[in-house]
């Protein structure tokens, strides 16, 4: 296994996540796509850490996971509250904050 394979996989995952964020309307799916992007980055970090033999990348990956966990908690709470008030989880329906 060369390092390139890991990186290509990470790039593919990231792209899927990014496209998902841009094209999907359901807030839960958007959320999962965001997680996908985060984890693709984690994969990259760990890959480079492994290839250089240092621990820095792995350390940062842990940080990302912790932050992602916190973000999930807050994000899900927001989605819940939006769904309760608007009876919809579409991100396009929650567009009050505009010009």
């Amino acid at each position, binding site marked *: 296994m060369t390092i390139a394979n890991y990186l290509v996989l990470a790039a593919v995952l990231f792209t899927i996540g*990014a496209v998902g*964020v*841009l*094209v999907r*309307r359901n807030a839960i799916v*958007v959320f999962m796509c965001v997680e996908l992007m985060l984890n693709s980055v984690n994969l990259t970090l760990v890959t480079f850490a492994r290839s250089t033999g240092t621990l820095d990348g792995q350390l940062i990956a842990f940080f990302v996971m912790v932050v992602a966990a916190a973000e999930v908690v807050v994000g899900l709470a927001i989605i819940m509250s939006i769904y309760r008030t608007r009876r919809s989880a579409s*991100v*396009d329906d*929650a*567009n*009050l*904050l*505009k*010009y």
Partner: protein
Amino acid sequence: MSETLPATGLLAASWLLIALPLAGAAVLLLGGRRTDRWGHLLGTGTVVAAFVLGLACTVQLAGVDGRSVDVDLFTFIQTGSLDVGAGLLFDPLSAVFVLLITGVGALIHVYSIGYMAHDPARRRFFAYLDLFVAAMLLLVLGNSYVALYVGWEGVGLASYLLIAFWYTRPAAATAAKKAFVMNRVGDVGLALAVFVMFAQLGTTSYAGVLGNVGLLAGGTVTALGLLLLLGACGKSGQFPLQAWLPDAMEGPTPVSALIHAATMVTAGVYLIARSAPIFDASPSARTVVLVVGAITLMIGAIAGCAQDDIKKVLAYSTVSQIGYMFLAVGLGPVGYVAGLAHLLTHGFFKAGLFLGAGSVMHGMGDQTDMRRYGGLAGKMKTTFVTFGLGYLALIGFPLLSGYWTKDAIIEAAFDRGGVSGWLLGGVAVLGAGLTAFYMTRLMLLTFFGRPRWDDGVHPHESPGVMTVPMVVLAVGSVAAGFLLVEVFPLADWLAPVFGEPAEAAAHAIPPLLVSVLVSLVVLLGAVVAWLFVGRREVPVTAPARVSPVVRAARHAIYADAVNESLLMRPGMWLTRALVFVDNRGVDGVVNGTAAALGGSSSRLGRAQTGFVRSYALGMLGGAVLVAGALVAVTAG
């Protein structure tokens, strides 16, 4: 100039001369309606008291060595090298003015008690009149050009307030504004002169400036003289700033008598006489004074011939007579005393004539059109006699005031010699003839002929409080000239200021011949006037079809039209252009910037759609850009 001594005794209290009328004005203005009942008495009392004090001071001054005292009051402005003290200079020149102002002023105050008796705002009238007297006294008593300037502006203010005394009449309000604006033109000249004095000599006191004229460059002295002359022209209604004075007749008649005939309008003559060393040092400035005087005396006399309003005739006569005074002081040392003597006698007879005109208006229901008078000699005997004496004095009837003082000016003009002497003398003689014409016309239209009164007008003599001042002034009109020339020679009294009167050298024309010549011209003028209006029936409305000369005279040689086309219109165009540049140019840049920012921000705001996914696309695009840039930099 002689040595100036510090004041002692009564002279040290000469500041009271100014303080008394000023206090009267303050009490009347601040006291409000409570002072309505006795306000006129207080106003008159302060001026009478000032006259008595002025008389006492003058008597004491006569005994002082050198006849010139200085009263140091307080430090007025002290900043850097500028140190202006407030002080008074009591010398023979100020003394004659103090006596003229307070004497004639007191008489006119007394007269006003009767004239303004039915006016609800009589107290305000007396307050302004007192304010005027105080400012005028400061003008003539101040010992520096700055003090003179303060008084100068004070009389301008009082004049403005009094012309517009009946401010509900649009004509009066407009006339007051006209007077104020035209005076402002002159005042700028005076202010610049004061600045030049300070810049060049570092002082503005008479002693400091007039004693050091020799230190100045010739051009500076001429500029100083011309700037002072501009100020004098504005205040004295001289060409080219003469147009405001006839309009100022919209004010009450006592105001016309005191301010616009006897005192304030002669301030220009005072200014030039006081600044004699400056004009002595600059023959060109003095020539300009001569020309201004000669032109004005002709304009005033010509315009006076065609007016139908009794006060306008007297106003143009004033313009013309002050032209004589300017001509006199422009002649230099030989003319100063003649000019000032004419100023004093003119103060008497012109004030008397105005009071007489006021008395006529009082009896005729405020009618001022002489074509609606006629035959008043029998109805108003006192007015007729006093007015008649003033008239004779003005036209220069032998041995009355005008004869002594005006002939002296004409003589001095001829004595100048050369072409200019003959020219100026000729103009002065012609002016005397025109004076006789318009004054005789006025007399005939008012007091003689068939009554042409409006219906319901019952002419009656004015009350004693008005006729007594007229009688006193008439006596002055008769005697002042003789007294000032023969009994108490003004030339000797003013010697400390202008130097000893020069011994009469060779006269260009013998004085007796001048007198005969002038008398003949005056007689001719009077006869022509009789041929025009005395012999014929006078139409009640002025004929519309008249020769161009008469039309020009009616419009005062089109002075207003000239001012309007030369100054007012271009000024208006300039203002409009400036307003346009301001609105479109300056405001355009500011408003345009604001509008551009506002517009673009509202357009940019459209990008905030509220759709999270489009924000996400923006972030992604940005991130790709940053990453691309990083790659490009590292790779490149």
